[in-house]
């Protein structure tokens, strides 16, 4: 066998001296135990929010989206803001599971399962907004290219809005397949430990009869690698295409070529923040501190400060280009509507700047990166900031168009617009609570895979190797 050795300078990925069985026990315990009171409270709140959202959407369909406060110039308000925000959040899951897999980052194993679940739920929430924004939603299938009796009148494949249809639905499908194929072995673990008949039956159905055969694992590894290879460019393409919705138009403030990388960085930024929010709660509530270690949290905070700074650079580049191009409309959008604190939406722009660019800079300090309270607080701040970013991009670019008689000083959402947004929080957290209760929140098989090379007990066993001189080491391990 080849030498497996990882430096002691790296923190262990699994704390505590765990055996394989301990890993199973720790991760499956929340599934087999009765949920705590906190779980019920959280779940009922989420369901209540979801119900309010459903009622808001019901009104959108029966009365039409006229009940929203959209007006002559602001045709995309909260609705599309929320769409972009949720899609962005979804990106972190794929980034963790796909791109970090390709980069061989061991720490992804502790967080990838929950992050992928988060991706799926976030994309589900995101999808609601363009669907209900259609207004006459029963005509929704018109976006699909199918032979019809209206000509056939096909969809316009040159339109970024149609690219979105393909991008989001592909992204959802591929994420779901990736997530579920990874779950199969872990569901089989739950099945084989199950004590009650119902649990045996249900996990038996869900695990597809997985038995851990070597050949199956070989194919599974190959499948995961190729799906990761496909998902990595996919995740970049999805937010690129979302940014095309804006960038291919000729609206000042939207018409910029910098949008794709800028949106992707922002998506990763907000997604990691949401992963932090969720995982800090999960590790506390389910006592997963040994698997989601401070090291994991620090690694994600590093990604946050990196992507936050990229986003900051993009903001400054936009401002510079607005100045350098000497285009009056561009200048108006950036220097009056946005950067001027006293313009109607100046507060939103500076709120965005504070939350996204300035505040994450505290993560340059190791002490703050490893502080749970700071991390949790920042994760919420970042997501507020990223919501503002999308709001700023959409509303400040269109609330004053080329015809001043159409201008409205203020666009503010109606209760049903807010209700719809709140409802997607309900959907997201309802799904996440159910996931946390019924599925292993950490990838059991993947943790076992890194246990012997990165677990704490392994780190101690290589003590002797660390003490050896280079010559001794070479003598012992050279073949």
């Amino acid at each position, binding site marked *: *066998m080849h030498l497996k050795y990882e430096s002691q300078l790296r923190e262990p990925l699994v704390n505590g001296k765990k055996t394989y069985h301990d890993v199973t026990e720790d991760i499956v315990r929340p599934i087999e135990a009765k949920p705590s009171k906190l779980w019920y409270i959280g779940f009922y709140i989420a369901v209540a929010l979801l119900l309010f959202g459903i009622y808001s959407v019901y009104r959108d369909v029966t009365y039409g989206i006229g009940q929203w406060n959209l007006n002559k110039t602001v045709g995309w308000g909260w609705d599309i803001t929320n769409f972009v925000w949720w899609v962005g959040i979804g990106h972190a899951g794929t980034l963790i599971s796909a791109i970090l897999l390709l980069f061989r980052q061991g720490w992804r194993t502790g967080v990838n399962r929950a992050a992928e679940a988060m991706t799926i739920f976030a994309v589900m929430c995101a999808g609601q907004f363009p669907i209900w924004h259609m207004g006459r939603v029963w005509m929704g299938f018109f976006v699909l290219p199918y032979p019809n009796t209206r000509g056939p009148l096909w969809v316009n494949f040159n339109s970024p809005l149609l690219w979105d249809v393909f991008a989001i639905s592909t992204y959802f499908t*591929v994420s779901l397949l990736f997530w579920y194929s990874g779950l199969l072995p872990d569901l089989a673990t739950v099945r*084989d430990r199950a004590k009650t008949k119902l649990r045996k039956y249900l996990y038996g159905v869900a695990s597809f*009869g997985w038995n*851990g*055969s070597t*050949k199956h694992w070989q194919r599974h590894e190959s499948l995961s690698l190729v799906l990761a290879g496909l998902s990595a460019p996919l995740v970049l393409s999805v937010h690129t295409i979302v940014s095309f919705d804006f960038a291919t138009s000729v609206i000042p403030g939207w018409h910029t070529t910098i949008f794709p990388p800028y949106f992707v960085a922002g998506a990763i930024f907000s997604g990691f923040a949401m992963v932090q929010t969720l995982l800090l709660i999960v590790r506390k509530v389910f006592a997963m501190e040994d698997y989601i270690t401070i090291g994991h949290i620090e690694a994600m905070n590093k990604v946050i400060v990196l992507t936050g700074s990229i986003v900051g650079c993009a903001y400054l580049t936009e401002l510079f280009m607005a100045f350098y191009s000497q285009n009056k409309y561009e200048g108006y959008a950036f220097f009056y509507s946005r950067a001027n604190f006293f313009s109607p939406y100046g507060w939103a722009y500076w709120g965005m700047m504070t939350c996204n660019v300035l505040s994450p800079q505290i993560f340059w300090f190791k002490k703050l990166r490893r502080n749970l309270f700071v991390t949790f607080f920042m994760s919420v701040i970042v997501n507020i900031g990223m919501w503002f970013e999308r709001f700023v991009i959409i509303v400040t670019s269109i609330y004053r168009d080329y015809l001043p008689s159409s201008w409205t000083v203020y666009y503010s959402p109606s209760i049903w617009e807010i209700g719809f947004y709140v409802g997607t929080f309900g959907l997201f957290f309802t799904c996440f609570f159910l996931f946390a209760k019924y599925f292993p929140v950490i990838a059991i*098989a993947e943790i076992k895979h890194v246990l012997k090379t990165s677990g704490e007990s392994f780190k101690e066993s290589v003590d002797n190797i660390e003490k050896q001189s280079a010559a001794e080491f070479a003598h012992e391990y050279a073949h």
Partner: protein
Amino acid sequence: MAKKKFVVGCYDDEAVLFSAVKKIRTAGYKIKDVYTPFPVHGLDHALGMRETSIHTAGFIYGITGTTTALSCMSWILASDWPLNIGGKPHFALPAWIPITFELTVLFAAVGMVYTFCYLCQLAPFVKKHHFHPRATDDLFVMVIECTEKTNTEDLQAFVKNAGAVEVNVQVAEEGWWFGRYDKNEMPFEQKIVAA
């Protein structure tokens, strides 16, 4: 399908497992499979399995997606119903790249997952015989196929000597069947091959 007789040896350490696999294979026994709780790298080669070609299947699905997207879009927008969009060319290849890419990924991913499930015989309601419930927890379960000539006593002793923590003989169905995991049943009991 038919039932067969197997000698089952369970190991609790992958380092021991590797040397055991080597010993047992050199002794001429046929290892049907090793069931492990997580992917053990190198075990497939130790068992003499060939590389999987599932990624090749993925590539074929992928180019199917590419061709589908490009041929559909060019037929629709350039031939079946050409639309004049701002006087731009009907055959607008650059604008079709996003959808072509998405369909490539979609076809490859969906196709590969279905192929994976088909090859591994995985589906809801599919049941298989599991040689040890801890094979998905912390044991590496090696299953050796017996023939008429196999002396199971000897083989069990051999497997034990190679470091197994638990050894037994099981007569079991090799394939899969539709069943539920809360009930113990194994169909196809008519004939027992290699008693």
